[in-house]
């Protein structure tokens, strides 16, 4: 039933779509360009109107790395990041499966409680939480920043994965059940692999969250040798002055790893597994 009209349309719509994308991308990129340009300026140029610096001061990058214990901060950030990533992905997937595939008493209420935990502004729970962690002696350690990740990894993530899992047809579960698999095996062999898209999304968000987390490390870490990159970045805002160009250089550097992670990760959830091939296989 293909006729001339339908074959011509796709070309126009593709072109139109690309145009919109490009326009949007330009809008999105401009602020970033400004950060990059500022990172290469001398302090005097920062306040001038010209968009680009006269001389591109790549030395700002070297100085930014040297001015603060960059690699120590990087190490600390990773010490927090890796366990949190592992803990979050696994525990949120487990809990999401529980909410998605089981029908136990009180599930509806518990799910509502799950959502409700996100509704209280963190500004007020922050201090009671801090007092609690202080009482058990975890202040000035990485523990308050890592341990909670193993306990569900956050309502946001559980909710996200649960939504996706509920969209996976039960036929697969049932045929596996018939073949003698228990719930755990169904989880590991069917649900997890099929849930790659939201799992990758959760990984990306968790990465970003830990990488840029300022407030958590701020209040729980006292010794400056334990500081993370996010805290280190703000040391460029001094007692009285802000070192804009160095701040922007450090910002660009700090943005690099998440960018790379995203670039690599998108392969796994965009060209992801299609449900149909799973059914066939």
């Amino acid at each position, binding site marked *: 039933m293909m006729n001339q009209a339908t074959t011509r349309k796709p070309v126009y719509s593709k072109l139109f779509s690309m145009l919109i994308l490009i326009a949007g991308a330009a809008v999105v990129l401009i602020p970033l360009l400004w950060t990059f340009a500022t990172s290469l300026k001398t302090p005097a140029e920062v306040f001038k109107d010209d968009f680009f610096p006269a001389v591109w001061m790549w030395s700002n990058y070297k100085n930014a790395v040297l001015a603060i214990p960059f690699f120590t901060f990087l190490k600390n950030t990773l010490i927090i990041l890796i366990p949190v990533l592992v803990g979050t992905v696994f525990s949120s997937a487990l809990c999401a499966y529980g909410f998605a595939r089981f029908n136990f008493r009180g599930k509806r209420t518990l799910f509502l409680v799950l959502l409700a935990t996100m509704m209280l502004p963190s500004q007020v729970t922050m201090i*009671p939480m801090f007092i609690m962690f202080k009482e058990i002696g975890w202040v000035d350690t990485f523990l308050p920043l890592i341990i909670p990740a193993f306990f569900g990894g956050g309502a946001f993530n559980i909710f996200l994965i649960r939504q996706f899992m509920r969209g996976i047809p039960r036929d697969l579960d049932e045929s596996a059940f018939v073949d003698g698999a228990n719930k755990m095996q169904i989880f590991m062999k069917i649900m997890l692999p099929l849930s790659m898209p939201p799992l990758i999304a959760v990984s990306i968000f968790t990465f970003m969250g830990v990488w840029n987390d300022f407030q958590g490390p701020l209040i729980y870490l006292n010794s400056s040798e334990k500081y993370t990159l996010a805290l280190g970045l703000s040391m460029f805002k001094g007692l009285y002055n802000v070192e804009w160009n160095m701040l922007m250089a450090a910002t660009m550097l700090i943005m690099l790893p998440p960018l790379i992670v995203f670039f690599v990760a998108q392969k796994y959830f*965009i060209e992801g597994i299609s449900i149909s091939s799973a059914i066939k296989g």
Partner: protein
Amino acid sequence: MRNSKSERAGYWFILPWLVGLLLFTIGPMLFSLLLAFSKWDIITGVQSIEWVGLDNFKTMFHDELFYQSLKVTFIFALVSVPLYQVASLLIALLLNMRNKGMKFFRLIYFMPSIIPAVAASMMWIMIFNPEYGILNRALALFGVQGPAWLQDPSYALGALIVMGLWGVGNTIIIYLSGLQGVPEELYEAANLDGAGPFQRFFNITLPMISPTVFFNVIMGIIGGFQYFTQAFVMTNGGPLNSTLFYNLYLYNKAFTDFEMGYASALSWVLFIIILAFTLLVIRSSSMWVYYQGDNEKD
């Protein structure tokens, strides 16, 4: 089938969350509920917490800034939630195309979410600059005299809403991952039947990603009502309280005025508001959310 032995296995799976709830979450939440009925100036330590019953709520009733911040926050939430959802879904659809170059486009649209909030705010202050900022310069090309944006009480809130649009990368990612779950065969079958792009979207895509829409709308509501960081960094509630977001007001009450009791009371009022809206969405969901995996209602 409900609560049979195999169904109760569900408790095991959600055990980590349950334990975490009891260990880390319930305690602080209850503490803050207590504080809502107390007076506490924080820096003198826990021994100075003083019960005052409903006083905080009585003060709230007469607090002009309470109403102002509610107004600002409501306007923001009610405008931004639909706006951001539609925009991010459209962009996600575009980014879902399987071309070679899409990798870079996806990266570009996601980049704003990677930039630390402070750097992003500085950039946007420059962009909104009435004389030299790119926004007004672009508008000038069309002969439009741009307003003073962040300096103008009538436009500051709008400026922040526009700025939020730039940062919807996270929502786009979620829509993208939802779009991945739509079975190819459905599209193939639709094509064979001669369905056009609009029909494909409304009859296949939308229903199939409705769980994702459900997620994004609820998170949009929760996040929208709790909007804080940009207002904190860029406008601090000004000019003339036109960007005094509820969470910002709350934060200032707690950390600047040292009135933690009042701040806690404010936060619980917000909690109830968000809960109410969320319940509304949940109730309505049986009409428009379709889960391919089961027949349960939310």
